């Protein structure tokens, strides 16, 4: 699955890691629901670190559409709310 981190390029993450990402996504979602800015920042950084750790960066000249887009570390709660779906950033 191809994941884009806004402003930071695309990563190819094997489907085998989806459960781990979903667990992180769940916690991020909880922080958003609770309107907890500090927890949100922490969980978002955790999710981004996992994507970078588990995924392989696509080369700059790759012309591939992403399955998923995640905001980068600088994003705040309001910006992310606009991007969020009901089931979190990661579908499923």
């Amino acid at each position: 699955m191809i994941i884009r981190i806004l402003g930071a390029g695309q990563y190819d993450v094997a489907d085998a890691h989806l459960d781990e990402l979903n667990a992180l996504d769940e916690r991020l979602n909880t922080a958003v629901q609770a309107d907890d800015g500090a927890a949100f920042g922490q969980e978002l950084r955790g999710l981004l670190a996992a994507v970078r750790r588990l995924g392989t960066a696509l080369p700059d000249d790759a012309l591939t559409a992403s399955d998923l887009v995640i905001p980068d570390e600088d994003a705040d709660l309001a910006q992310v709310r606009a991007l969020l779906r009901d089931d979190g950033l990661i579908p499923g």
Partner: protein
Amino acid sequence: MLFRIKANKALDRAEDPREVLDYSYERQVEMLAKVRRGVADVATSRKRLELQVGQLQASADKLTGQAQQALTIGREDLAREALTRKQAALAQLADLRAQRDGLAGEEAKLTLAAQRLQAKVEAFRTRKETIKATYTAAEAQTRIGEAVSGISEEMSDVGLAMQRAEDKTAQMQSRAAAIDELLASGALDDATAPGGARDDIQAALDTQRGAAGIDAELATMKGQLAAAPDRAAIDAEPAAKAIAAPGAGQETKS
């Protein structure tokens, strides 16, 4: 997903889907130029902040010097005042440095974004020529869709990054203008009272140091006046004549 749908809609409208390739490529080149200008704009703002950081640092150093000078002549009150202002200048300096670092971060991100976009635009151009040369209009559609949606997403991402950098730069510019005004007015020498235009600590120090010299010079002048009271009267007379008859006045002087 959204990007893919958009790209396919554009494809459906085109009589020959291969036309979409040229249209998309044109837009990519425009976007790349825009991003490069964006990087240059952010760099300009960052440099302006660096300049101001330097000027503020100079102000703080100057105030330290004034405090030492004041202590040397036993004016602890002036020294305390100078150090108070220095602290305020340092607080502004820390703030400015944090903003400069923030802008430098945006600049680095945008530079990377421009590099990524450039690599993708080049890859797109290559694929565009391959598709045009190899495939019929009917065959090309799927391949064009893939290429266009891949790069459209990158363009949207870069667009967001540009927007953010522009917002930050705009905030910074109004702030930088305000600090430039302060620096120009000399008010940062008096950091506790922005808007005050003169450096009264330096004035007080100068007064103190100059007082002895002024007293001595005054005494000398008074002495000269006392020794030659008539000379002044004589000098005044030809000057009055000179207005009526310049030639006569000059003779008297020589």
